[in-house]
Structure formats: C-alpha cells, structure tokens
C-alpha cells in the first residue's frame, strides 16, 4: 500500500502540470480526496468533482483531438486496496469468500463470449475467442481471466493489489494452455492507458484491445469518469466494454449489503459501499458521454440456497452491461473493417 500511495501522490503532482484548464480548483479538490474514503458526507464534494471532470473532459476534447488520461489514479480508493490485500490468498477457494464470484462465471463468461462472437465472426473450432485481445480490469486472482484465456483470447489482467496479481500469476503459470495467453500486471487502468500513450509509436496500434472487462469493479471505484475515459482510450474502435456491477436501489441495500454481508456472509463484511453503487441509467449516461453506445443491460440474481446465479428481468440488484466504443469516422473504420476481414 505504501508504494501505491506514493505513486498516487507522484502522479497527482507530476501530471497536473500538463492539464490545460481549471488546474487550481482541481488541485485543491484532489488533495482533499487522496486518502479520504468516499462516504455519504462527501457526496456533494464528489458531485462537484465530477462536474469539474466533465467540464475538463469537454474542454480537452475541444482543444486536443486525442484524449489524454493523465489524471491521477484517484479512481482507486486506498481503503479498498487494503481490504482486498488481506483476502489475496483466498481467491481460488471455490467455497471460500469468493464462492459467489466463482459461480458468477457461469453467467459472465457466456455473456462476454456470446457478445464477442456476435461482433467478431472468425471462429476457430475449440477456441471461440481466438485472436482477440482482452483487458480484464480489476482481475483479482484471475477468476475471470483464466476462462477467457481458455477460450483462446490473449488476456491481460490488471489489478492494483500486488498480492492478488501474485496469486493470479502463480495459479495460471502451472497450466501450459494458459501460460502463453494470460498475462498479469499490478497496475491501475490509468497507468496502463497512460503508458500506451507514452510508449513508442510502434506500440500504439498493436497495444489496443478488442474488449475490456470490468466485472464487479465499478462499485469499488472512486472516479468513474476517469474510468470511462481510460476504457475508451485503450479500446479499439468498435471494441466492447463489459461491466457487471450492483444497482443503487433500496433493494440492493437490503439484499446486497444487509443480507449478503451481515446476515448470510455471502461476501465479507464491508466489501461494498452502497454509495458507490451506480444505477444502469446513470452508468449508461456516463458511458455514452464517453464515446460508448450501450448495447444491452441484463439483470442477474444470486440464489444463496443453491449458490447459483441466473439471468433475470429486473436490474434492481446486480446487472451486466455491454457497450461498444463508437467508431469516430464511419468511412475510415469501414475500410479498417474490410482490411481486418481480409487479413483474418
């Protein structure tokens, strides 16, 4: 955690000099935020901060054609980091703290797989996601990264918690199938997307992803605006973004926090903060303003008795969302699409 908070501070100080407008206001707000847990009392502050961010983003887009993501890594909350650190060794226990996440693979892997198959027509038998590059944000111990790798994709899993990445690397290193296709890095999304930008010219085109997966992540983030920006940045045009998260409703408070954490202990107590939940409407708005087009939203329901998830009509508690990065220039990208089809 020390390393992370240092790097956070470094990024905050270092990168601010490059922001075009409204830096002074932001600086003050930012200093107030680093190290402070987001809670109900700071909600108004968050709103202000978000408004500022949006303003900045709009200004950026007007002045600079390319979107920069040199904002701080403040979308990562240090308290969250600490919490996940302590759970790092328990990822791969099917019946342990993360049992519900293991079970969630039954829904999210087909969701990702089928939506990607709809978009990318080339299929190799036995490897439905062959040839695709996927980024798994907040991969934890690699619970979702490994199945995607088994389906043939080249997956990069990132997570700010170093211990989780260590666990993930160890688990996937034994399987010869996964060794070549699945890689992990301990970093944040902002760092990754900043790096892509800063890296040599020859990396730029090749370094982008066909899909980004952020499953059970956005409810732990402090700054979703930045998250949306960075996702957009690392994705190829027409690439897919998959999010699974929890809605912000009374029902999700009752079932997702009171029942799940305190009564039934499906998730460890304190895992979720209701304030960080986001409704699908809100999320859709955020994504659409960041250059995405939301394709589908589906509700998911967990049955504690059977330990299984199922799709449901209501998005009142958990939901999954699929969005596609809007192509900027339809003509140019049609040509790109033809070229891709010719090469595949």
């Amino acid at each position: 955690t020390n390393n992370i908070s240092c790097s956070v501070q470094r990024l905050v100080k270092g990168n601010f000099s490059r922001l075009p407008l409204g830096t002074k206001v932001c600086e003050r707000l930012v200093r107030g935020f680093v190290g402070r847990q987001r809670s109900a009392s700071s909600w108004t502050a968050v709103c202000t901060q978000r408004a500022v961010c949006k303003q900045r983003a709009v200004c950026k887009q007007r002045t600079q054609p390319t979107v920069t993501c040199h904002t701080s890594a403040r979308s990562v909350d240090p308290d969250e980091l600490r919490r996940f650190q302590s759970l790092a060794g328990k990822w791969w226990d099917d019946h342990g703290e993360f049992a519900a996440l293991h079970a969630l693979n039954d829904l999210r892997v087909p969701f990702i797989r089928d939506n990607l198959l709809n978009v990318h027509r080339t299929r190799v038998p036995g490897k439905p996601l062959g040839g695709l590059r996927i980024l798994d944000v907040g991969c934890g111990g690699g619970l979702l990264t490994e199945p995607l790798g088994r389906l043939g994709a080249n997956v990069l899993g990132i997570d700010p918690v170093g211990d989780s990445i260590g666990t993930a690397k160890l688990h996937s290193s034994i399987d010869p199938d996964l060794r070549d296709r699945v890689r992990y890095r301990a970093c944040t999304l902002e760092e990754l997307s900043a790096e892509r930008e800063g890296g040599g010219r020859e990396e730029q085109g090749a370094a982008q992803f066909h899909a980004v997966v952020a499953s059970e992540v956005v409810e732990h983030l402090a700054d979703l605006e930045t998250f949306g920006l960075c996702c957009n940045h690392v994705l190829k045009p027409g690439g897919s973004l998959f999010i699974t998260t929890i809605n912000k409703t009374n029902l999700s408070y009752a079932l997702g926090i009171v029942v799940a954490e305190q009564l039934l202990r499906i998730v460890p107590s304190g895992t979720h903060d209701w304030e960080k939940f986001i409704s699908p409407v809100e999320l859709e708005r955020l994504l659409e303003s960041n250059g995405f087009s939301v394709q589908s939203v589906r509700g998911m329901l967990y049955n504690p008795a059977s330990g299984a998830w199922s799709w449901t009509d209501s998005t009142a508690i958990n939901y999954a969302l699929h969005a596609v990065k809007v192509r900027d220039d339809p003509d140019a990208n049609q040509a790109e699409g033809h070229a891709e089809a010719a090469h595949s």
Partner: protein
Amino acid sequence: MHKLTRATLAFNGLGRCLVADKHVSALQIHSRGFVCAQHVDDLGKNEVYDIIISGGGMVGSAMACSLGMDRNLEGKKILLLEAGNKKVMHKVPDTYSTRVSSISPGSATLLTGVGAWEHITKMRCKPYKRMQVWDACSDVLITFDKEDMQDEMAHIVENDVVVAALTKQLDDLSDNVQVKYRSKVVKYSWPMPHQQANAIPWVKVTLASGESVETKLLIGADGPNSMVRQELGIPTVKWNYDQSAVVAVLHLSESQKYLLTLPRPILCALQLSDTESSLVWSTSHQQAQELLELDEESFVDAINSAFWSNENQSELIETAGSLFRSTLSAIMPSAGSPRQLPPSVAGIGPKSRVKFPLGIGHASEYIRHRVALIGDAAHRVHPLAGQGANLGFGDVACLTRILSQAAFDGKDLGAMQHLLEYETERQRHNLPMMAAIDLMKRLYSTNAAPVVLLRTFGLQATNMVPALKEQIMGFASK
C-alpha cells in the same frame, strides 16, 4: 484353449486392471497391432494432457471417439491408455465370439454419432424385435415386442466387433486423440483439491514402461475391478451373486427370430443370427464348473433339458396360473401376443464355452476432483437384461455433453461443478435400472410357491397390459 479364466487373460498379455471381461475375448483377436508407446518430451517435465481415458474397452473407446469428434473440444489433448493390444478386424471371423452385448437404440444412436455404427453393421450384428421371458416353474410367459415391426428393439453385437469398429474410428481421429496400446498403468497420483506450492495440480499416471503423463481430467473406464476406483478409495456397494455365468454359442435346430430369457436357472439366449444364439447361463459356481467340463454332447443335452424341462412346475401353481390366465383373457380377450416355443439346440460353437463369476457393483461416487468413472468401473450389473454396455454408453453420451459445454464456457475440465452434474444425472438413471435387474434376478432365483405365484400373476398381467410393457421397453431402450 477351453477355459478362460482371468488369470489366463492376464497371461495373454492383457492387463487385468484395465480390461473388463465383457469386451475381450482372446480367442477372437485376429491381428495384433503392435503400436509403440510414443515418447514424451523429455524436458524433465511430464506431458500434460487435457483428458486421459484409462481403459480401451467398448466404453473407453467410445468415450475417446466421442470426445475426439466434439467440436468444442477440438485442440484439446486427449489420450487413451489401453493395456491390451490393438484390436483390428479385417475380416469378421466365421465363428461367433462368446461375449456379446445387447445394444439398445440409445446406444446405437451414440455409436452412429461417433461413426462406428456403420462399421458394426458392415461387420456383423443382429437386430431383434421380440423378447420372451418364460418362467420355469409355471407355464407362463411374457412377450415384449414392438408394434411397428420396422423399428428394431435392439441389436445383438459381439463385443469384439464393437471394439474393432471403435478402434477403426479412432484411427481416423488420430489428430485429436492419441492412443497408447500395451500401456499398463501402475500408479495414479491424485492432486490436492486446493493448489499448493510445489505440488502437481494434475493427476499423474505412471505407466509400466516408466513414463509418466499428467492430465487435467482422468476418466476411469477400466472395468468392474477398476484400479482408478480402488486407488481413490471410493466405497463401492457390491456383492457377488453366488453364481457364475457360462457363456456359449449355440447352433439351433430350427430358425429362431427372437431373444429368449428363461429364469431359474437363469438362461438367456441372445440371437446372433437365424440359427445361432449366444447363451448366458447363470447358475451356481459348482454347476457352472460342471457344465464347463461336460463334453459337447452332454452340454447340449443339458441345455435342451433346461429349456424344455417341466420338473419345477407344481400342480398348484399350474392350476392357479391357468385360472388367472383365463380370467384375464375374459376381461381382455385381445391382449397378449403369440408365443414361441423354446428352441432346441443342435450343437454348440467349437471351443466357445467360457465361465465368469457374476456380481453387482455400484460405486457410491462416480467422480472426484479431476476424476470421473464411466462404464463398469462405476456400475456392474447381471448380464440377464443385457444392459451393462448400454448403461456405459449412456455414461459416455452424458459426460461428453457436459464436458463439451464446460469447454465452451472456458471451465477447467477437471472442476467438480460440472462433474457433479454428470454424477447426479447418471446415478438417477442407473440406480433404478440396476435395482430392477437385481430384483428380477432375485425374483427368478427362487422356487418358493408364493414368489412363483406372484411372478406368475405379475408376468401374465404385464403381458396383457400393453402400456406397461411399452414403459418397460422404453426405459430399457434409452
């Protein structure tokens, strides 16, 4: 070679652990394909396969073919380990082999799916449409037949023919499925359920040749005395019937079209062709031994008298039986099917008598972490209903479907979640079938009057009620 006991089989170079009685008959192997064990990459690490199937009998080979042909499993490394030699049948031998199985329509569908059925039909098989069951103690019988005579009820196929057909298919699938013949397994090492540092997370199989291979999922298809099951320490409910079965090929004096089963001593005659029949005679160990030692003529006499004898019938039961029958025909005059007299045996196939002990067994668990049992390794039944192979093929179809779906969902093939689904589904199907067969066997093993009356009435009533018979046939055809 007259008597083939297990020891002789082993002496013939066939690993006892990996080969079940029912699928090997050393007499009928025509050519021995000597396939050298492939050399594994000697990088200090063992080769890791996705699936290893231990045991290349009917069920094991069918499993290998089925997995090899599945689209979702393409690109996975599959290995079949067989302790015996490669069974190739260029020309079907003139004499019938003694071990045969009744292949239900469900199993025929599976075999068609893997492309082996056409090889089987080209080699040799006999469809049958009718099954008659006599009771030795009363003059009653029950007939099962399909209304629509176009549809066959089942086929009788020699076990060797099935294995040869599957082996031929495996040759075509050599890109997806590797087969190692003459590779006997000496040791299995099991993984811990949770990953531990410096421990191999896969199942490790050590062969007699000294090489080792590792796998993410081990499928045990190694017969009723499964080494996989024993090494796992899976508790098995089993008992030996106090009986042995004597199997022989009979030449009948007149043409027969039906399969016959006679209880007490339980005789089951499975039709191989119009004039040849495979006999399975279940009787006490002692009598089985005596039968085996008789010369051919006396053996034929013994069979004929068993088919035709009336000595077990008592007056009381005969009267009761005929009374019941007339009552029933008064109520339902049109019900009942024409009956066939038992055949008379003219001779037996040369050197075709074999004896093996009978028992029933059911493993309480079919699966463990990274292991699944199929076929006789999981469940062993009395041959009287000819269902043993069918249960095994049912396991193959179910497990293939489940593994295919798991692979399409990116799951680790050895994970317990989907293996548990397989176990539940198959136990639900197999247990009632095994219980029914066991019940039939017990019901027919006694001479006691009340039981005989019960089964007499039961048989007659069942014979008259078409709906009930259809239910039974439907269940047996799955």
